[in-house]
């Protein structure tokens, strides 16, 4: 059921043609774009909601080991910052040529997420999930008699709650093990923690 929802969300993200209204520049960070006919934008507030920032911090006890994400997850998987994320959304996600992936579980995503992202926790990509190939096909892979080809797979930017969590590194590792090409994946290490600390707007799960 959850997989169907994920696939549906991906289909919407991929299938609906969109247009970019403006792109990030050095002078103006505000970026507007349209997804499925709905106008959206990235904006930077002059104030920071510290409580929201704190909600994305994970304590030591929540990790199997140090709550410190690596700077680099794998070779050929670049680690990127906020400007690259915004540019990726405006130029690729907005026209269905890329996916911004929130790798957190659904409860963590409930605290707010980056607009246009789709939720794919690494638990969804386990081999015992009967919808695994469906999800990968929604990400652009081709399937034939159980075999997968990733030539047409979409470029991805993967994020999680931030440097104190390992959801994104785990998802990226899972994707690489499934054969997803490393050069189609980028890691936004700052995640929700840094995104909100910088005053960038998020989307509420209820909105």
């Amino acid at each position: 059921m959850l997989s169907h929802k994920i696939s549906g969300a991906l289909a919407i993200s991929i299938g609906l043609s969109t247009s970019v209204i403006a792109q990030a520049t050095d002078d103006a960070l505000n970026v507007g774009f349209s997804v499925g006919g709905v106008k959206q934008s990235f904006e930077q507030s002059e104030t920071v909601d510290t409580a929201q920032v704190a909600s994305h911090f994970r304590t030591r006890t929540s990790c199997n080991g140090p709550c410190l994400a690596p700077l680099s997850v794998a070779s050929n998987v670049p680690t990127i910052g906020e400007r690259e994320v915004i540019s990726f959304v405006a130029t690729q996600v907005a026209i269905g040529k890329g996916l911004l992936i929130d790798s957190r579980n659904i409860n963590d995503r409930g605290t707010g997420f980056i607009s246009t992202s789709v939720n794919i926790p690494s638990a969804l990509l386990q081999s015992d999930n009967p919808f695994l190939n469906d999800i990968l096909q929604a990400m652009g892979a081709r399937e034939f008699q159980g075999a997968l080809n990733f030539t047409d797979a979409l470029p991805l930017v993967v994020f999680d709650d931030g440097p104190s969590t390992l959801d994104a590194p785990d998802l990226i590792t899972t994707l690489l093990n499934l054969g997803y090409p490393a050069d189609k994946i980028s890691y936004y290490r700052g995640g929700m923690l840094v995104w909100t600390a910088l005053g960038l707007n998020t989307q509420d799960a209820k909105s």
Partner: protein
Amino acid sequence: MTTTHTGKSTSALPWIIAVGAVTFAIGAVGALAFSQANQSRQNNAFAVLAAQLADMQVTRAQSPDLLAITAPVVVAPSTSIPSASAVLAARAPTNMPDTRTEEDKIAEAIAVVNRNKMRMLTEGVVAGLYTVTAETADGSGSRIALNSLNAASTAKELERILSQAAANGDIEALGSVSANGGAIDSKTLLFDLVQRSLEDGSEKEVAAAKEMSRRAFEASAAKTQLVNGQRFYTVQEGDSLAYISLQFYGNTNSYQSIFEANRTAIASPDKIQVGQRLFIPEA
């Protein structure tokens, strides 16, 4: 002085003509003899080829032969791998229409290549001793091809034999494996022959044929465009319809479905053009 000189020239002319005529005659006889010798050599070579192929046919009938298993793959139930004489007869000029099917032509191709060499390849594939990508000749990338690990030089030799046989007319170039430049796509043809050889064999061989498909599909570097949910592929330099089928279905057999899905754009399987956009139907 002048008169004497003229007289000498006049008297020498018949000799010059005579010597020239004799030289011409000797040259003509020599050329004819050379031509006959050359023709004789060709005939001898042809006879040797016929004998070799005939031997293969006899051997196939008398002992288990991996490629003999491929005979039932030929669609027409009554048709087995053609005898050497049948292969050679097919080359003879005739006014009769060519009614051979693609499968007949594939059987001819199998008959032309050396069976022992083919067996080395198929056994290597069953053992998993191969990869399915090979660098392009110009080093610009890689293409799907049977890259044998146990018999690399044999594979190259068979590709050469197939190309040569197609160039000589010993086998009919299959439309589906004709690259868009017109030349036979010998790498794809060899992949196809090995895979077909395995498809009707033992359980292990059938599994090996499927594994070839899986590896080829996963290795495909063919990029497509989705338009209203339909997948399109743009023909690249060196593509044949069989190669395109190999990229999207892991075998060449499905070229027909691509051809049928694009009948309005393709007159015949060997008439695809670089830059042409083809609809790739779902398997």
